[in-house]
């Protein structure tokens, strides 16, 4: 016979408390586990990255640009920034500088939808 169980039913105070504490602990457990994994990954990267040291600055170059636009990071559920560069940085910077100069506005106040060149 089917039980027609529509509601999971109320929890008593004890069960509710245990569930809440346990849930919070599981969240911590999950993120601490992840933290450890990421740390190990980071260390592995760092040690293997010493050979590729010359490459790193180039790869990391876009990062310092980000703080220049402090209000720019994308919001989930709301409009996000479109990727700034699809062309080598130098050319993109050049185009942006030209436009910014003609508009008399600082670079970080302009949003370029996309600058693309044929690869």
């Amino acid at each position, binding site marked *: 016979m089917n039980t027609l169980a529509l509601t999971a039913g109320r929890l008593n105070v004890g069960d509710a408390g245990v569930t809440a504490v346990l849930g919070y602990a599981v969240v911590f457990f999950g993120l601490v586990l992840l933290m450890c994994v990421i740390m190990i990954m980071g260390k592995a990267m760092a040690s293997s990255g010493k050979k590729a040291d010359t490459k790193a600055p180039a*790869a*990391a170059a876009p990062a310092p640009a980000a703080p220049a636009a402090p209000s720019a990071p994308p919001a989930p559920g709301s409009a996000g920034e479109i990727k700034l560069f699809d062309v080598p940085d130098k050319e993109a910077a050049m185009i942006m500088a030209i436009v910014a100069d003609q508009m008399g506005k600082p670079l970080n106040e302009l949003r370029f939808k996309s600058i693309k060149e044929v690869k």
Partner: protein
Amino acid sequence: MNILETLSKLATESGFAGFFAAGGWKNLIMIAIACVLLYLGIGKKFEPLLLVGIAFGVLLTNIPGAGLYHMGMWDAYVYECAYDPVNDYALYNTAQERAYDEMEMNYYIVARASGHTTEQIEDYFEQQAGADVTNDFLALYATCDQNAANDLAGKLKGSLSFTDIIHLGGLLDILYIGVKAGVYPCLIFMGVGAMTDFGPMIARPSSMLMGAAAQLGVFFAFFGACLLGFAGNVAASIGIIGGADGPTAIYLTTKLAPAFLGPIAIAAYSYMALIPMIQKPLMRALTTEKERKVKMEQARNVSKVEKIIFPIVVSVFVILLIPSTAPLIGCLMFGNLLRETGVTERLSDTAQNALMNIVTLFLGISVGATTVAARFLSLQTLMIVGLGVIAFMFSTIGGLLMGKIMYKVSGGKINPLIGSAGVSAVPMAARVSQDVGRESNPNNFLLMHAMGPNVAGVIGSAIAAGFLLARFGG
């Protein structure tokens, strides 16, 4: 059909007549609420991309007679979900057994049409323990609203499925299927992943502690809701408001307590827009001037390879730990992977633009449509609204306290203000950290540092949702 007959049919079918029906005034109130929500979305810019859609859904669903969304149909669908054909079916070897089961469903139908609650009916069946209910059914059928019973019967008799909803339902019923199936929130999470830079969190993995601590409100509000008498599944859905993550809240609520989707979604998105008002006083109260002045060191650069490996590693470990997070974490990380590979820009762009916008359109208006007056205007909605703000406050407090602990442990290198950003609500909570930090030290740029806990909070909420789903889900 003569002219008078047609005119009278038009008049009785018009929605104006609906306002004078029993409970019709509630629709007027709901239309007013829709207008308030539209004002908040458009005028006050409260998460407009979702709130405008939700508000318009509230409006459309509460115009009497519009027929774009059918609460009863989805209730029937819910019932059928609760009914377990997998376990029951193999037992029927004879037509008699099947007929018996049908009688039980007949009884359920007429009992509901007679105004009995599901709980009462359940109790009745438990007493009967499998006995024949035919006579009781016939007695009840003689007295119930037979039109209502017939209507319910047609919907319940083992036949109501998504395909019936496409067939019998209104436009918003059809769009709602994507919510019900859990597809829209996952696709939005894919877009969120494609828009999110997890770099700041990878650079400082300890951010994740704050992202975990800032789920405090989820479990505090859950506990509170249990105390107020909500069933466990509903309390879990209310608690998740404290995760400050719209798609996660909608996903969990759809799975656990779909009847409360409207108020929970509205509370989640409204409070997300109110983050500055909720968080700033708490941040000022719980931190000292000295703590707030801490300038943090620039975090290390994160290489492209790390950013590519990150979503893969997170998917594997988080899903292994809590398998029920798979849809949310899987989509979030898939989107993030598409963002970081450097060779799938087309897909990343579509995930965060065309696809996400289409899904946002459908999600907003169909979630709004669930706020049918008869159900929305209740004490429970008020309690949800109240518990929601408590959830947000305690999540903020949780994050701040963890920030203070880390300030101590790190010897003053970590500014506790970034802890409150752990509630997610990306990137608003991080901006609030930045703003409050500059109040104490105008040269303090906390934004990038706060992005770490901020994006960790998204993962934290998904884990919390996964836990609650594993605990209270089917």
